[in-house]
C-alpha cells in the first residue's frame, strides 16, 4: 500500500513536470490549483456531513442525547459514568424512571458538565448514580482528551456546556486542547486518527450510519459470551494504568465538584463500582486495590460526607465470566442480573408514591422478548 502510494506520487509529480515543461502557463496552473482545492473542500465537507455522528462514539452519544431530551422531565434516577455503566444498567428494568447517560470513556470532567446541564432540566431527579470504576481517576483520560474525544465539543455545540464552562475547562486542560477540539469538531475528517480510521475501517463507519446497536434509555447491549483471556485482561489493565497517575488531580477536583453540585441541588449521590473479572482485579492490584480506592476516595472525609451510599459490586461476578462481554464490561446476561440487583438496592431510596409504572417498556416489542428470554434463563438457573 505504501509502495503504491509512493509510485502514484512519483508518477503524478513526473507527469506534472512533463506537462508544465511543455506548456507552462501560470494562469492555467493557478486555476487548476483553485479548482482542485474547491473539489477537495467539497469532498471533505461531504465526508464530514456523512460521518460526523459516526465518529463520535459510534452514534451512541447522539442517540442517547436525543432519547434523554425526550424524557428528561420524568427522570428520577440518572446513571452517569463511563462505559462500564453504559453496558451494565438497563433503565427499563427499574420500577421508577431511570436513565443511563454513560457514554464510553467518559471522564469526571465530562460527567460534571453533563450533570450541570442535566440537573437543572430534570425537576423529578432524586438520585444520581455515579459510576466509579477503579480506572476513573487515571490520567489516561487526559490522553484521550488531547487525542481523540470530541464529546466535550459536542456538549458545547448542543449547549450542554456554556462558553464559561469551556473557559473553565481550558484552565485545567490547556486552551490549545480546547481550541483544537473545537476546530476538529467542525472538521472531524481532518483529524488524523479519524482519517486513518476512515481509510482502514470505512465499513465500520458506514455501519455506524445505520446503527445495529439498540440504545434503550441510554443502555446499549453487548452480546459477547465471556471469552476472556488473561492476556486480554493484562493488556486492558496496562492500558488503563501503566505510565499514568492512578489518582489524577484534575479528576479529583471535578469529582468533588460533582458531589457539591448534587449536594447543592439536594440530590443524593450513590457511587457504584461495577463488576469486573477476577483476572482484571488480579492485574489491577499492581496499580490499585479496592482498599486504596476506598481510603483515597470513598472513605475520604472530603468526599464521603456527600456520598449517600456506596454500591460495591466490584467482585460480584468475578468468577462468572459468562456475564462479561470483556474483562470490565458486562454482556446482556450480566446486565439483566446486575440491573435487578441495583434496582433492589435503589428501591428503598425512592418513595412508594413516586414509583413510576414503566408502561412504555412494552413498546419496545423487538427487544422485549430478548429481555424476558435472558431473564428466564437467569431465573431458571437460580431455581
Amino acid at each position, binding site marked *: 500500500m*505504501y509502495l503504491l*502510494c509512493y509510485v502514484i506520487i512519483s508518477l503524478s509529480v513526473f507527469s506534472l513536470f512533463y506537462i508544465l515543461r511543455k506548456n507552462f502557463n501560470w494562469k492555467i*496552473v493557478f486555476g487548476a490549483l483553485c479548482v482542485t482545492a474547491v*473539489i477537495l473542500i467539497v469532498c471533505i465537507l461531504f465526508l464530514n456531513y456523512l460521518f460526523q455522528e459516526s465518529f463520535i462514539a459510534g452514534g451512541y452519544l447522539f442517540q442517547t442525547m436525543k432519547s434523554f431530551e425526550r424524557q428528561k422531565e420524568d427522570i428520577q434516577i440518572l446513571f452517569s459514568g463511563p462505559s462500564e455503566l453504559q453496558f451494565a444498567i438497563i433503565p427499563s428494568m427499574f420500577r421508577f424512571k431511570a436513565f443511563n447517560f454513560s457514554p464510553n470513556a467518559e471522564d469526571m470532567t465530562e460527567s460534571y458538565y453533563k450533570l450541570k446541564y442535566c440537573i437543572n432540566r430534570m425537576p423529578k431527579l432524586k438520585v444520581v448514580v455515579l459510576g466509579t470504576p477503579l480506572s476513573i481517576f487515571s490520567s489516561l483520560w487526559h490522553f484521550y482528551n488531547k487525542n481523540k474525544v470530541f464529546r466535550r465539543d459536542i456538549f458545547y455545540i448542543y449547549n450542554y456546556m456554556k462558553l464559561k464552562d469551556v473557559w473553565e475547562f481550558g484552565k485545567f486542560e490547556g486552551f490549545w486542547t480546547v481550541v483544537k477540539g473545537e476546530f476538529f469538531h467542525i472538521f472531524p475528517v481532518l483529524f488524523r486518527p479519524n*482519517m486513518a480510521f*476512515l481509510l482502514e*475501517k470505512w465499513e465500520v463507519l458506514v455501519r455506524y450510519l445505520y446503527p445495529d446497536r439498540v440504545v434503550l434509555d441510554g443502555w446499549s447491549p453487548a452480546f459477547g459470551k465471556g471469552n476472556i483471556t488473561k492476556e486480554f485482561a493484562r493488556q486492558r489493565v496496562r*492500558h488503563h494504568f501503566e505510565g499514568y497517575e492512578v489518582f489524577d488531580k484534575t479528576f479529583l477536583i471535578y469529582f468533588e465538584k460533582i458531589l457539591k453540585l448534587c449536594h447543592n441541588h439536594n440530590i443524593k449521590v450513590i457511587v457504584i463500582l461495577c463488576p469486573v473479572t477476577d483476572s482484571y482485579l488480579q492485574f489491577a492490584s499492581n496499580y490499585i486495590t479496592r482498599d486504596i480506592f476506598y481510603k483515597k476516595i470513598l472513605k475520604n472525609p472530603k468526599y464521603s460526607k456527600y456520598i449517600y451510599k456506596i454500591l460495591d459490586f466490584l467482585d460480584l461476578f468475578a468468577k462468572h465470566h459468562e456475564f462479561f462481554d470483556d474483562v470490565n464490561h458486562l454482556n446482556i446476561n450480566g446486565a439483566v442480573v446486575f440491573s435487578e440487583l441495583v434496582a433492589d438496592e435503589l428501591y428503598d431510596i425512592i418513595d412508594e408514591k413516586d414509583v413510576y409504572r414503566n408502561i412504555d417498556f412494552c413498546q419496545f416489542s423487538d427487544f422485549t422478548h430478548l429481555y424476558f428470554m435472558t431473564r428466564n434463563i437467569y431465573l431458571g438457573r437460580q431455581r
Partner: protein
Amino acid sequence: MRERKEKYKKYKDFFLLVFLFLILFITIGVLYCLKYQPGPFLYSRF
C-alpha cells in the same frame, strides 16, 4: 480550425492538471494517514 484546436488543448491541459493535482494531494493525504499508528484500544471500548 487551428484556433479551436488550441482552445481544446488549453482545456485539456487544465483538466489534466486538475486531475494530477487531485491524485497527488489525495495520495499524500492517504500516505499521511496510513503512517498513523493508533493505540490498541483507540477505537474499541475502554
